[in-house]
């Protein structure tokens, strides 16, 4: 590629008229789907806002292959080879974590779109994120289950080898136990693994305990199959979940069986929060002819936050950009107003949606807890 021609080692001489921003995502491998969603967002943002400081912004996409070893190399390559000034990504907290040391040591800021694992930004001044964290989301769903569904007993089925699902399940559990004041409010926590397709015995087991609600954090394909199989087994208990469910495929796969499934997410197109949301929605629908996923909006926002920081820094020096990213406050993104806290995490509202008539329908907005 063209980037190869840049002299390596020694004093960095970047191309003068372009600013490179790395997009660090799983393009191939098991998480390719999620990666693609975020890339869409970043690319759309780049198309709409192609310039900053009078220079063209170029996205350099690096595939982390859904693999931790590769992820570290890909991140190192972005930083050293492509001389990017900042990085967007990655879907999948573990890949972000693998890049953590590199961005910190090389002092290049990274903004994750949807990595919700608290460890990503913890103790790393160079990692940020534009989404909320699992603890918040867990609380939101616990509240919803307790208040709106009147649930007092809940069963959890979680994707045990997925850090996101394990974390979310735990935060939900803590919050729900606190709400009910009942140490046994969680009847059972049952597990499955990524790629599993048969959940019948897990479902039968938890249905025997008669929970009011089943909380099922995990990948959307598996989740859709879980709900589908539950219906086939005649289990008529409401399912609630997390932000990963908000993909068209969740409905495609689940069809009428996922009707009524409720989950929390970052953003809704029904109630555009900012003017940026409307621009994003319009352009996305025009380009792709469908409704965007939340993580796409977040990928879009990650780009904008970086761009904004470059603008404010008036420089392409990664360290200066980092300092400006850290100061991001009340920034109007497509998926809501973004304010980064001292950990570099976004403090923002969550949205609750339900599947109705084959579409995601907005239910409620939950403001962040101070």
């Amino acid at each position, binding site marked *: *590629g*063209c*980037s*190869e021609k840049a002299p*390596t*080692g*020694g004093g960095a001489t970047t191309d003068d008229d372009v600013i490179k921003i790395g997009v660090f995502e799983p*393009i*191939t491998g098991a998480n*390719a789907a999620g990666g*693609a969603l975020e*890339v869409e967002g970043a690319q759309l943002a780049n198309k709409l806002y192609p310039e900053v400081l009078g220079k063209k912004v170029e996205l*350099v*996409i*690096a*595939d982390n*292959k859904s*693999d*931790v*070893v590769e992820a*570290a*190399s*890909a991140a*190192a*390559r972005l*930083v*050293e*080879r492509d001389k990017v000034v900042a990085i967007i990504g990655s879907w999948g907290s*573990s890949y972000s*974590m*693998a890049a*953590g*040391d*590199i961005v910190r*040591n*090389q002092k290049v800021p990274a903004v994750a779109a949807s990595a919700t*694992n*608290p*460890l990503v930004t*913890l*103790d790393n001044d160079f990692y940020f994120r534009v989404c909320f964290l699992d603890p918040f989301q867990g609380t939101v769903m616990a509240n919803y289950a307790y208040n709106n569904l009147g649930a007092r007993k809940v069963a959890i089925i979680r994707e*045990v*080898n*997925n*850090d996101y*699902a*394990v*974390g979310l399940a*735990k935060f939900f559990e803590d919050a729900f136990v606190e709400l009910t004041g009942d140490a046994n409010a969680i009847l059972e926590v049952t*597990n499955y*693994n*990524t790629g599993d397709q048969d959940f019948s015995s897990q479902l039968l087991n938890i249905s025997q305990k008669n929970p009011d609600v089943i909380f099922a954090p995990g990948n959307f394909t598996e989740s859709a199959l879980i709900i589908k199989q539950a219906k086939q087994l005649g289990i008529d208990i409401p399912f609630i979940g997390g932000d990963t469910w908000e993909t068209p495929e969740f409905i495609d796969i689940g069809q009428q069986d996922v009707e009524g499934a409720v989950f929390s997410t970052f953003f809704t197109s029904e109630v555009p929060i900012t003017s940026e949301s409307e621009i994003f929605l319009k352009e996305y629908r025009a380009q792709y002819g469908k409704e965007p996923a939340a993580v796409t909006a977040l990928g879009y926002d990650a780009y904008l936050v970086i761009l904004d920081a470059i603008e404010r820094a008036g420089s392409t020096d990664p360290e200066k950009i980092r300092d400006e990213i850290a100061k991001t406050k009340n920034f109007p993104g497509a998926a809501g107003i973004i304010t980064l806290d001292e950990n570099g995490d976004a403090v923002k509202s969550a949205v609750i949606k339900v599947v109705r008539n084959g579409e995601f329908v907005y239910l409620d907005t939950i403001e962040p807890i101070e």
Partner: protein
Amino acid sequence: MKKRDIILTIISISVLILFLMFANSRFDSYQIRILNLCAIYTILGLSMNLINGFTGLFSLGHAGFMAIGAYVTALLTMPAAVKNQNFFLQPIVPWLENVTVPFLPALLIGGIMAAILAFIIGAPVLRLRGDYLAIATLGFSEIIRIVFTNTQNITNGALGLKSIPNTTNLWWSFGLAALTIIFMLSLINSSYGKALKAIREDEIAAESMGIGLFRHKMLAFVIGAFFAGVGGGLLGNLLGAINPVMFRFILTFNVLLIIVLGGMGSITGTVISAFVVTSGLEYLRVLDESINLGFVRLPGIPGLRMVVFSSLLMIVVIFFRNGLMGTNEFSWDGLFALLRKRPSFLKREVGR
């Protein structure tokens, strides 16, 4: 060894050391990372070659041993504060919380734990043959991974570990790779090494010549696992973050690929192949990027790299059935012969 060869060997080792010093000061972190990976894959490749290439056991359990090494080394080198930060969902078991040891002992303990596990697994599994051994060892490595996913208060489960001290550097990785090479060469040329090769050639004959099959297979298996553990430890402390998903079968396959391409039963081949495959895969990244032809800009096709890589792999395997080196080893004589264009250096047996 001839005097000439000793001198040449000393010269090349000095050149390597000079190169490492140069690389350390002048290379960027990306290049250094790739070099580190090359050296680590050399260790992993050699350890697997001992089991699969020299002893002829068909073992696909390497990722499991690496996982043990990586986790043990990481947990032993992480300070208590970092551990507590990591284990925010479920606290770490107390006996692990406060142990912190320096890198080298941690690596060794990692290797030894992998070796102990290999010993336990080996007792039942090494009785199996061929494909059955392959699938059983693959199974064990998957079981290790699944156990690591589910023992949250020891391994932090799916969350993985992060902020592992970045201790691995060129000196560690190349130093240990060099030690591994020397160890393997010395082992292979010793009476024990020859016994292992005899087992590969013909188990029944080897046993009839007084070679205890089980004991020697176990020896290779345990030593291989030890080095796999050390390699895994180096890898974990290079990456700084590990999780159970990373130790899937594909990791074993990467190592297998290296030894098959290099030549099963050739130490030289493994070393060459570890460097070629690791850096080659990085180089192919170009395919995923957009290509600027000056007048038009071709968009990169995501995933094309892996398609090209897997087809290259198959082509290489098809045309170099016995790998680049077969079972041959580098020797100075061979090199000179090659320079004089004698074919004896890379002589391949036909119809094997």
